[in-house]
């Protein structure tokens, strides 16, 4: 529908300009942004969150664009973790639609498949999620405005060690993001003076988490780090945690924002109260920049949809793109855009200060330690500690060959 409407709009515009014989000097510069996201299928929820953030930024800030510059978003659906589809869509966006930017991408393998397209076409590729640590190295035309699991899991390990906890336990879902989370937590925790009692990888999906939680209880650690996909798995873990009385046994559960997803909190209920997690964004944050974002979100989408870190990553990615357009007046090539993007920084992301590391083109951002608390009768991730300007620790531990 939208494409059709756009097409008709464009057609009408073209006819109108013919009729009025507008001289070409006044013609608009159109900046096309190809967004590859997951719009259909069982995994479309994170894609939807991201797209809402992207659309919202464009809606709020189109007025700030230089005169005569117009931004067009072209959405394509990769249907999930399908790198072959994602790469083809990127090729088509470049060769058929002649986009100026590639953006979006929920899944790491999809981003990795698109990377060579960006390199060959010399088109900036703004990754707004796809959190696999090495991905930014795959093309000099990539910047990332999201996070890596190392970036989020290390600070919680560091924080746990600082609490004086000595014995740590890690239980993660048995897939690549789980390994990254485990690596981030255990490395930072042992570096801070703790020792790991055990490291467990839980098959995914798992219908019953009780045996795993019981095993944690039996090994009597001070702190347990758990990473499972958000949604029913996370809720099941927390339910088992409460039922088996681990809190009373003196074990603290820590995790990342992926497990304590803002939009899932209403479904979790009381079990998520008191859970400590590390995250780059909580929609309960009291920063002025976040209030502006939340107000814009609610006036655009109503009180129903709840923004989470995916939405903010989309918002910030568009912010970077808009800054390129504003600084160049809409006239730039891939090289020039990359020069601006790799040095991009802002103080008013809903996440607080945010920057791109020129050396790695990956994000530098604050990581907040949050606790699940009831605020005005609603469960929220309340930030109570900040670890400022975190860079991806994986890249520091694994320098490029």
């Amino acid at each position, binding site marked *: 529908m939208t494409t059709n409407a756009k097409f008709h709009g464009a057609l009408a515009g073209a006819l109108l300009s013919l009729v009025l014989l507008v001289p070409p000097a006044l013609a608009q510069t159109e900046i096309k942004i190809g967004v590859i996201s997951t719009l259909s299928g069982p995994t479309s929820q994170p894609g939807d969150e991201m797209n809402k953030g992207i659309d919202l930024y464009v809606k709020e800030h189109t007025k700030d664009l230089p005169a005569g510059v117009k931004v067009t978003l072209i959405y394509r659906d990769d249907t999930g973790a399908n*790198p072959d589809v994602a790469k083809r869509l990127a090729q088509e966006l470049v060769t058929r639609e002649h986009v100026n930017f590639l953006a979006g991408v929920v899944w790491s393998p999809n981003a990795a498949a698109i990377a060579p397209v960006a390199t060959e076409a010399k088109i900036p590729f703004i990754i707004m999620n796809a959190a696999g640590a090495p991905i930014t190295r795959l093309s000099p035309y990539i910047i990332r405005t999201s996070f890596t699991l190392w970036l989020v899991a290390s600070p919680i390990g560091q924080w746990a060690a600082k609490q004086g906890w000595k014995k740590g336990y890690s239980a993660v879902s048995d897939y690549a993001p789980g390994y990254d989370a485990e690596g981030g937590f255990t490395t930072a925790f042992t570096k801070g003076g703790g020792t790991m009692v055990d490291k467990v990888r839980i098959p995914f999906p798992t219908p019953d988490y009780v045996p795993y939680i019981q095993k944690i209880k039996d090994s009597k650690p001070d702190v347990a780090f758990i990473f499972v996909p958000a949604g029913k798995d996370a809720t099941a873990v927390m339910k088992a945690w409460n039922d088996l009385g681990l809190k009373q046994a003196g074990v603290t559960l820590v995790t990342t924002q992926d497990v304590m997803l803002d939009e899932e909190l209403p479904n979790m209920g009381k079990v998520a109260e008191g859970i400590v997690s590390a995250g780059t964004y909580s929609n309960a944050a009291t920063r002025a920049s976040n209030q502006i974002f939340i107000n814009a979100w609610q006036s655009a989408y109503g009180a129903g949809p709840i923004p989470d870190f995916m939405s903010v990553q989309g918002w910030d990615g568009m912010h970077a793109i808009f800054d390129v357009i504003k600084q160049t007046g809409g006239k730039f090539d891939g090289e020039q855009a990359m020069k601006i993007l790799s040095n991009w920084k802002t103080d008013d992301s809903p996440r607080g200060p945010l920057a791109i590391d020129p050396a790695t083109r990956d994000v530098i951002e604050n990581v907040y330690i949050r606790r699940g608390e009831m605020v005005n009768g609603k469960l929220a991730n309340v930030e109570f500690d900040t670890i400022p300007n975190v860079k991806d620790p994986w890249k520091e531990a694994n320098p490029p060959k």
Partner: protein
Amino acid sequence: MTISRPEPSRGAGAKSAIEVFARRHRLRPMELLPWVIAIGVYFVFPDYLALGAQVLATTLFGLSADLVLGYAGIVTLGHAAFYGMGAYTAGYLAAHGVGAPVVGLVAAAAVAGLAGLLSGLVILRTQGLTLLMLTLVVCVMLQEAANKLTSITGGTDGLQGMEVSPVLGYFRFDLYGNTAYWYALAVLFLGWVFARTLVYSSFGRSLTGIRENVTRMHAIGTPVFSRLLIVYTISAAMAGVAGALIAETTQLVALNVLSVDLSGTILVMIILGGVGRLYGAFVGVPLYMIAQDRFSTIDPVYWYFWIGLLLVLIVSFARGGVLGLIDALLRRLRGSR
């Protein structure tokens, strides 16, 4: 029996049967149509070659699935297992310095064929639902293995760092998909020649016999199990080649190549075209993939609905797929004449 008695009518019948048999292998002009269209697409739709290359590779996958499902009657829900084995083989080689695409294809065929042989040895001893479940199990087990063996496959992040060298040392894979298109077309053509020869051979006829009446084939002394095993292995190798084609053009392999989802989709595609017809894949795969591409461009959020509607219509009104529908129409035209 009085064989010596002259019987003119019977003689004429025998002659025509011989003629039919002799003509069976002959290439009908219609059979060149897919290739004419494929070459035409290159010149008429130069912007759609990336999609075109994927359609061609998937057609090869469909052809391989049709060999087991349509000809041998082995109902499988796990054919992606071999497609994925091929993709990972080509991917692993390309990520470890063996980037020649043709070498990747041959290795993929060998590994996927071996996987087909080994799994076939076990699962082809069963029938019906048990067989169906076991094909599913092979696929799921391989996918879980690929998820766990991150040092080889990269797990959910995908097998990265593939460096595919130019085809035959000369044709580099380009952004527009020119090389990918011709490369996939050439491989599909070879696959088609092979499959066509196979199904028209006496071996191919015996497969159809097994599909139609196993007991009778046993009774006339056909080694049923070994025939099935051979075709299963061949089909697995072909699926592996198709997977390798996709891996080489994408230059990345992820777990989706081993998914049950994909195994089901390929069946839907060939059922759409027509099962057991050799050309079912040539109609069904392009139809499904082009419809998917068009619907998802026009309506990126709700395109699944339209493709579902298309499937419902075809399954309700064209039982033998699109080709079956065409057959029925032709028959009606001839009948009314």
